[in-house]
Structure formats: structure tokens, C-alpha cells
């Protein structure tokens, strides 16, 4: 059984501008593992709970090199792959970027 000691609550922003009228939030209860990242928690959700959750991982490095997984975690922009989870988290897309779907936003123009 998942309880407060061995699990965390991951609240995620959901929105697909092509299909949804407005954004909403969805909360998942994910098993906690020492030394896990926000990305690890999202991977767990995708594999085991909800494969419709979109976050940028079809490419990218998960080791802090490409910076493409940047999102807001508990209100602060950070790399999801190198942000260690220690408590319940709120995950939202970066502000002032066009939302493609859920946590995936348009990259910065170079």
C-alpha cells in the first residue's frame, strides 16, 4: 500500500490548446524512491498510470545537459531531470512560452 511515508503526490498541469477549453490539474500518487528526480516521477506516471501525460522526453538527455526538460517545480523553474524530489510537488510549464501540450512548451528562439 502507498502511504505518506513511501509515496509522494505529484500535481501536474494538463492542457492541450488544440483540444481543451482550459487547463486543469491532475494529481498522481507515485511511489517514492530515495534519490529520484521529478523526471523519474513523471516517467513512473507515464509507464504505470497515465500514458497521455505529455512532458518533453522523446529526445533529451535526462542528465542535465540539454536543458530541454525545464519546467516550473513548486513555482520555480528548474531542470526536471536534475531536481531531486523530497516532498509532494507541483509541476507546471514554463511561463511566457507557447504551450504545446501539458508540460511541453515551444523552445526559446535561438
Amino acid at each position, binding site marked *: 500500500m502507498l502511504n505518506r511515508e513511501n509515496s509522494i503526490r505529484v500535481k501536474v498541469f494538463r492542457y492541450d490548446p488544440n483540444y481543451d477549453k482550459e487547463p486543469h490539474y491532475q494529481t498522481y500518487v507515485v511511489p517514492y*524512491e530515495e534519490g529520484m*528526480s521529478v523526471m523519474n516521477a513523471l516517467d513512473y506516471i507515464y509507464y504505470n498510470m497515465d*500514458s497521455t501525460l*505529455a512532458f518533453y522526453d522523446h*529526445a*533529451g538527455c535526462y542528465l542535465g545537459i*540539454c536543458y*530541454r526538460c525545464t519546467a516550473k517545480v513548486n513555482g520555480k523553474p528548474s531542470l526536471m531531470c536534475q531536481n531531486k524530489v523530497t516532498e509532494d510537488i507541483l509541476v507546471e510549464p514554463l511561463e511566457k512560452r507557447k504551450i504545446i501540450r501539458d508540460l511541453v512548451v515551444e523552445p526559446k528562439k535561438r
Partner: protein
Amino acid sequence: MLNKIVTDVLVVGGGGAGFKAAIDICQKGLKATLLSKGPLSRSGATPMAGADYTLDGESLSKFNGLNGDPNDSPEKMFNDILTQGWFLNNQKLIEQYINLAPVCLRELLEWGIKIKLSDERMVFTSSIEIMNAVYNKAKSANVEMFEDVLLLELLVIDGKVVGGVGLDFKSGELIYFSAKAVVIATGGWHKAFWPNTGMRDLTGDGIAMAYRAGADLGNMEFITFCNNVLLHPPIWKGSIAPYVLSLFVGGSLTNRHGENILEKYDPYLVEKGTKTEWNKSFISYITEKEVKEGKGLSHGGVHYSRGNVSWEKVEAAASLLFPEWKYRGINFSEWASKLKDNQPVEVGPAVEYFEGGILVNEHLETSLDGLYAAGECTLGPFGANRVFSAITEIFVHGTTAGINAAKYAKEVDRLKVDPKKLSAIKNRIEAPLYKTNGLHPAQIRMKIQKYAHKYLGPIRNKQGLEEFLNILDKIKQEMPYMATIDKKRTYNKEWLEILELENIVQLLNISARSALLRTESRGVHYREDYPYTDNNNWLLESITRRINSDFKTCWRPLTITTAMPPTGVAPYLNFMKQMMQSHSDTKGKH
């Protein structure tokens, strides 16, 4: 119908090889279109490299301000690449690598990359600098670049490759690319395994679609595992930081009983197998052996600690490799405290490089007209084991493939693709979106990754490979029944996962069958049931060709220019030692 993009040469892949090919095509006055599956200049394997660039010391010594052993020579380097590759190398491709390495380095320096340090045969730079340099150069050369766009299928008319069908992954729209020639530069297929040291976009798309189009593949059984890769905590899983550190300072490897693993082996093997880049094959083999014998730790690895190496020496190396224990977005300060207290971390082999791939000649032509390949996706110069740098390979190959594809594109007419053919491809690609019931891909991929590491890892045997082939056959039969739960087109992970799985399963199948057929041990291919290197029977390349829905693997004699390979049979580690001892007198890590 599909959106259409018209170009002269379509370059598939946004790593170093793709960029270099596209730049050279534009410089020949043609239009090049480059597809990057992920973020532009942060995609593919290149940005994950350390990165070292290797060339012969004699040429290196002529560069201002760089080291390089003037007593080294192209001949010595040829000998060393050949013995490191256990004589299975295509000797024409070795010569090409050696000849073009200094030319390409000079060009990279002109493009502004900075060198951190250099030794007898190597310059150490940053892969991010390399990617920024090629990106800026591609922009000024007017390469047309697409981000988050991948190619899914090649288009072939009368045996000629004339473009392909791609997917803009963010919007979910399909694109028809009309081209006169195509360069595949999609790298390896790391995602078939977990852990791995590559980006998440490396799923062998290019190798698999070339194979489907009818191109031959070769030596698919040879897969390099990087040693001492972090297996825990999850946030660092796949990081090669302990590998890099151990190459510079050494350190201790112990199993679950606390036994020193390195002490079990011939000191000569240990010396060469830890202080040079022979470590990938040697350490991956000996640490995986501990795990197979039940002496591994809870995450399938062994312990790495600094052992007898002083903390000061570790700190000094780290200050150069990852200043303040940081490397871009990753922070290793917790590992630093462990190292200081001489506490271990769990490490193990993780898939890193694929020696085999699309069969090419020295012009980087494949067996199909109009199709070129460059970089890791090819059967390149390294034979059964790579020690020299793959960064050099991408620039050497990118240059050659780009120039030859441009030459070809200038000579041929554009061919028209039958719209019926495009609709058939579209229907196949979109099928998982329209099925209401079916199997879901996410769990299947995780299962495949686990078995791939277990059965196609650094240690293999008949029973395991056969079991793996059975598992893959079952999944192959299930493939047509896969469906997405998610029916939206925008950034649909499941949809891509199904399309990628098809490629991954196909390449694993070919690799496992080639590994099963090669009844000897050589380079990174070790067979428990055939622990001998057999130079009387196995100095052959495995060549795989599609025949309808199945494939055939046959054997091709080696491509030899100057060096005759040895004869005889020797136990695996004995032959490895012989190969290490045949190294020229040039020092350094290669």
C-alpha cells in the same frame, strides 16, 4: 495530402555527423535540409560525449600550442586501431579516419572550438562547444533545419532513394520530403537498453528504415558498453562521470563480498584495461562477470570508490573534468563527499556505442543508390571494439558523406513519388492512432530494455540469446496490434513509442541473431559458451539483408589494404592481452 518540403539532400540526424554533412552539402551550392529529432544542437549522442577527438600524434604535434607525439605516425595509429578492433576492421575505413582526422580538426578550430587539454594523440574539448560551433556554421551556411522532426520511412523508386516521410512530433503532422539524395546520420539505438549513456532520441530509426528500404547492415552483434556508469541513485543513472574519473585517476572496484575485482586479473591487463580506453571492453566484461556470478549489488552493478588514490588527486582531476563537482545541470557534490570519505557508489556497464550498422564503402555510399550514411549508424572503422574517438568519426564521415551525396545529387533528376505510395505509408504510420483496442507500448518497451541488457549485454550465451529471440518474436507478432490510449496528435509519446519500438525490436532481433551465429569471442562480443577468439574461422563480417518480412545473415571476407590478420585460436583474455601488447610505443589513452 501531406505537407511537402523540397530539397536537394535530406540529412537525417542532428548530431555532429548530420551537421557536418549538411554544412558541406551547402558549401557545394546545394540545398541541405537537416532533421533533428530533438532540440537543435542538443540532440543525438554528440552532446553527451566528454569529448575527446583523436588523431595521429605526428599531425597533432604540428598544431600550434597542442601536444602530440611527433614520433607517432599514421602507420602506428593504423596498427593500433586494427589491434584494438581485434582485426575485424574495414582497413579502408581506418585509413580514411586517419587521413581526414587532422583536416577536420583544423576546420573545427577555425570554427572556434576551444581545447581544454591535449595528450600524445588526443585533444579534449567540450561536446557542447562542438555542437554550438557546428550549429552556428550550419546557420551561416544556410542549412534548412527542423527541430523535433524525425524521419519515419525512406522513399525508394527503382532502387533509388528519393526522400522520405517524417513527423513533426510537436504538431503531429506528417511531412513528405522530396530529395535527390538522403544522408542517414541517426547514431545508435541506445534506447533499446536500460541503463544507457545516450539521449532518449537514439532509437536506431535511420538504421531500421535503411534496412526496410533494402540497405545491407553489418556487424550488428558488436555493442560497446561503457564501464563504471552510475546505476544509483535514479537521478544519476546513466551518468559516465565515474568512468571519466576512473580513467584519469584509477580507483577500486569491489563486489558484494568486498572482494577486489581488479586483483583477480593479470596485472598487465589491469594496467592497460584501466588507464587506457581499453577499459570499456575489459572492465565491462569483468564487472558483468561478477554480476552474472551472483556477486553483484542490488542495482545490478559493483562498487566503485577511490580506494588507494588520494583525495587530493581525485579533487585535482575533478577540478578539470567537472569544476566544483558540477557538469552543466548535474551536481555531484554528494558523490564528492562520498569519495572524500572513501565511500563507494554503485556502477556497472551501460550501452554506449554500436560498432556495426548500415554497410558503407569508403565513399560512405550504402548498398542503395542515393542513400549515404555517416557516423555511429554505420559499420565504421572500429571492427570488434572501439578505443579511438567516435567524435573524430562523425566529422570524417560527415565530410565524406556530404561531399559524395552532393556530387550525386547534382547529377540525378528529381523523381516523382506515386501519391498512392505516400498514402500507404501515412496509413501505416497513423494506424496506432485509429485502433480503438490494442496493446499499449510503454510496459513492453521497459520489458525489452531489461532483457536486452541481460541477454545482449557484455556477456552472452546460446541459451540466453535464443530465449531473447523468442521474446522478440512474440513482441514482433504483437506489433500490428499495438494501439495508443492517447488519440491526440500533438506530442503523443505513445504514438512515437510504437513507431520506435518497431525499429528497436527489428535491430535487437538482427543483433541477437548475429550474436548467436558468431560462435567465438571477439572484442565486445563475449560468448560464455565459446570463450575463444577464433582467427581461423571468424575473421568475417556479418552482413544482414532483408528478404520480404524476414532477413538473412551471411558472412563477408574482411576488407584488407596492408595488414594481414593473424591465424590461430586463443582464449579471450589471452588474445585481448596480445592485442594490448601489439600497441605501438605511442603513449596516451588511445
